[in-house]
């Protein structure tokens, strides 16, 4: 395989990709033109990043609200430390849970250490779904709360942080 891009080109490619993949029939050709490389090199670099786990897929960020999933709830639970991994893994696999993380308690203000996100079309549906889920997993005795969101302020889609400079890909 052709060697990938040089570090400067790789960084330029990453910056171009911050805005997303060009929406044209040959996106890697279009990117290659912008960074003065060829299509094969760009594809090879993309494969390399993919294999290194820098990105998992060329995918989408959905606007759940625009799709009618307006009942967005954060389920928080206080799980005994000895059980957190087991409970986290079980809830993480449950249908309807889109994200599941352990986060620290901040006593005395905050008692919960497991966070799950659930999206649904209707609030009562989401409530019923979560009650059923907790019952099924024998977790309904654990202290928990459901925090529904009532407003989403403008989100910036996917651009969370400035990319570190001078960090060429490994390998």
């Amino acid at each position: 395989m052709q060697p990938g891009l040089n570090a400067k080109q790789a960084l330029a490619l990453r910056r171009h990709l911050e805005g997303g993949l060009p929406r044209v029939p040959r996106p890697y050709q279009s990117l290659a033109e912008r960074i003065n490389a060829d299509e094969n090199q760009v594809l090879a670099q993309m494969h390399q990043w993919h294999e290194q786990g820098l990105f998992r897929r060329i995918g989408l960020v959905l606007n759940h609200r625009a799709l009618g999933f307006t009942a967005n709830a954060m389920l928080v639970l206080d799980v005994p430390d000895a059980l957190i991994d087991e409970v986290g893994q079980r809830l993480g696999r449950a249908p309807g849970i889109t994200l599941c993380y352990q986060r620290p308690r901040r006593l005395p203000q905050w008692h919960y250490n497991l966070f799950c996100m659930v999206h649904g079309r209707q609030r009562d549906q989401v409530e019923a779904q979560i009650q059923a889920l907790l019952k099924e997993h024998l977790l309904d005795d654990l202290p928990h709360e459901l925090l529904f969101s009532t407003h989403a302020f403008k989100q910036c889609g996917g651009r969370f942080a400035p990319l570190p400079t001078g960090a060429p890909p490994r390998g």
Partner: protein
Amino acid sequence: MDDLDRRLINRLQLGLPLVRQPWKVLAEELESSSDELLDRLHLLLEDGVLTRFGPMFDIERLGGAFTLAALTVPEERFEDVAEQLQALPEVAHNYRREHPWNMWFVLGCATQQRLSDTLHHIETLTGLPLLNLPKEETYHVGLYFPV
């Protein structure tokens, strides 16, 4: 949104194939054409049904620092504080939630130092105590959300 839009969204959530002409592959799978699918994608992004299409970089692997934070904002100050946060590029998104901790947002910074500076900055700016809840373990990240 029609059936093809839904099938396109569901298919793209699994990832666009990493090949020279990915839309040709998808067009065959979805029994459509590259041009039609690209047009659909443009519209879905323009209409705000989708907010991003492209590689989802694992920002933590790129060396960033992230956290989930919450504030208890008095009702009469809610909009003002939301605006203060919106002006900060480090704030990725911000939700109002029904709870005494009523404002929840994600912070993303290039370094850990920058993240703790930003947390202090928000406390100073708003005069409100802040809950800092960085992720300690990931059990599941939603990969697929059928529409």
